[in-house]
């Protein structure tokens, strides 16, 4: 083709077409890159899940993680969680969001995300795997109760004090109950649970109070394959 400036429209069209080709391959090059982060995560031993979790569940949850990650930097911030309307209207939304973040950090990666959700896997899944000698799985009854305990324990001192209980109660009921009523509810709860007389609820006392509660049913989410 002769490139003679404005007199050769078809030459120009041809050049334009040839220019678009490499551009299009650049765009498609993006597509292959999208698979790599998941491969990295899948190779991580997500051992706290035990062997009964399926590859497709991890893939689906990774899709979910990336769709929440608006900053596209591989981690979630608190704002990313607050963007979920159903979580934002949950009275204990902030405490739940806090449970995802490790001590003192503002970002959670996929491993941390899965770790927190792992607490809610049904307990019967553990019976399928015969790993009796490994560490206690995250979704055991005891660990589920520990998760709930940590939601109350605001300062992480392994005790639920009267103040902490009041604060959490206030989150749950909003402005609909007076301070005195709330105080009496808190007092009665501590009175029933406290056995060693320190006016606070330790984890062992917490477990004792809830020994008749069907924790498996109340704190399990069925993950579909």
């Amino acid at each position, binding site marked *: 083709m002769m490139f003679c400036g404005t007199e050769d429209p078809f030459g120009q069209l041809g050049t334009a077409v040839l220019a678009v080709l490499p551009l299009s391959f650049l765009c498609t090059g993006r597509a292959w890159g999208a698979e790599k982060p998941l491969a990295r995560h899948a190779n991580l031993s997500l051992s706290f899940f035990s062997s009964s979790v399926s590859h497709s569940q991890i893939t689906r949850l990774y899709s979910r993680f990336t769709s929440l990650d608006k900053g596209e930097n591989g981690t979630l911030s608190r704002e990313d969680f607050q963007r979920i309307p159903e979580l934002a209207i949950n009275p*204990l939304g902030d405490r739940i969001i806090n449970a995802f973040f490790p001590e003192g950090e503002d970002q959670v990666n996929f491993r941390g995300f899965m770790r927190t959700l792992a607490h809610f896997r049904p307990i019967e899944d553990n019976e399928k795997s015969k790993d009796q000698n490994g560490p206690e799985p995250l979704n055991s009854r005891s660990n589920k109760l520990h998760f709930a305990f940590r939601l109350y324990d605001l300062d992480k001192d392994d005790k639920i004090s009267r103040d902490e209980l009041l604060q959490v109660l206030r989150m749950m*009921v909003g402005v609909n109950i007076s301070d005195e009523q709330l105080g009496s*509810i808190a007092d009665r709860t501590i009175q029933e649970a406290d056995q060693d007389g320190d006016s606070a609820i330790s984890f062992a006392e917490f477990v004792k109070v809830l020994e008749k509660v069907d924790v498996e049913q109340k704190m399990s989410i069925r993950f579909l394959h």
Partner: protein
Amino acid sequence: MEENREDHGLAEGKILSVWMILFVALILLPSIFRVSLGISHFYVKIVIKILEWATLQIEEGVKKQKAMALENLISTGIIQRDETPMEEEIVGRCQGCFSLADIMYFSKKGCEAVAEDEVTPRFCSEELLSWNLLSRTNANLHHVSWKLAAVWVTGIIIRYCLLLPFRICLSVFSVLLLVLATTVVGQFPNGRVKGWLSNQVQMICATLGVRCLSGLVHFHNRENKPQEGGICVANHTSPLDVLILASDGCYSLVGQVHGGFMGLIQKSCMQTSQHVLFERSEMKDRHLVRKKIREHIADKAKLPILIFPEGTCINNTSVMMFKKGSFEVGGTIHPVAIKYDPRFGDAFWNSTKHSVMTYAFNVLTSWAIVCNVWYLPPMVKEEEEDAVHFADRVKAVIAAQAGMSVLPWDGGLKRKKVKESFKEEQQKKYCQIVIQNVSVENRNIC
């Protein structure tokens, strides 16, 4: 040398004239008279065959690799939600008192929302059951077979090198035509001739626009088409909705003021017909808009108003809350349901992620835009009904026709935070369960 150039020039001249004749005969004339030559239908059939073959390839490849179950990967949800209401879950040892276990209900609901929620997926593109050979939708798939890769590469070449330049030329032509024609018609004195001319100009440019996207639109129930003095409401997926509806009828538009390319088109349209434009963030504007709409429909000679009550683009899998403003005004509502076929290309405009130009590029490099438009029978607000209930009724009708789910959530959640009042509702509900018998509590030992 000079002879060569002359021959070259003559040959080019001939090719150019052939192109022009083809262009006029195959595209311009059918658009003016709104006749379909069936080329789009044929093209779409071929693309469907290719996609079905590709699906088979992927399924076979997956069986060989025993990697992941493709059907289950996308079509079902991530978790099965527990729908038991709060009252049943929070039942302590005694009715109407607080138990330390109550926190479990909230933590479970919270984590369910983190794993999968109803609202945030509506603001990004729909996931597909099977890959449609567009590179932008293959986030989770591995290399399956060489045949598939070859077809994919051929698809790229066809779409980017053959269809894209052609579509760009055609869309540039139609935008220029729109701007010129509306400027010319805008000079005419107001009257019936101007009205008729501006209608024709709008419809021709819209039809040309649909052609340049390789658009295939099926209109159903044309007898229910919106009449003068009515309000036409439809579910909103992208600016293409306007283009598609405008190719089959003339409307006055109500919409958000845009800058740039969209602003240019808006300004040209404003020259020939009455449209209502507003700024989303202006509180005062809302009352003004309502006033203008009222005046507009009172004048029976004016074109029907086209409104998208969702207020923003949703990804065509569900219909979100209809804002009650347009349902309070009175007048007949003509619902229209628009459903795109996602296999051929994603029509949804994610305005938080893509600019108009990126979106236009994506649309122009898809296979095609195939959609169904249903005109539904007109509806009127009943005497005892309030606007919110009426809006929900219309929304249910549209969703049922298009096969989409209904969500009570506000489309504005794409950009705004959810209102505090919803949280307060949840708190109130919990209170009612916990302090059912306040006086009983004080007497009994729980």
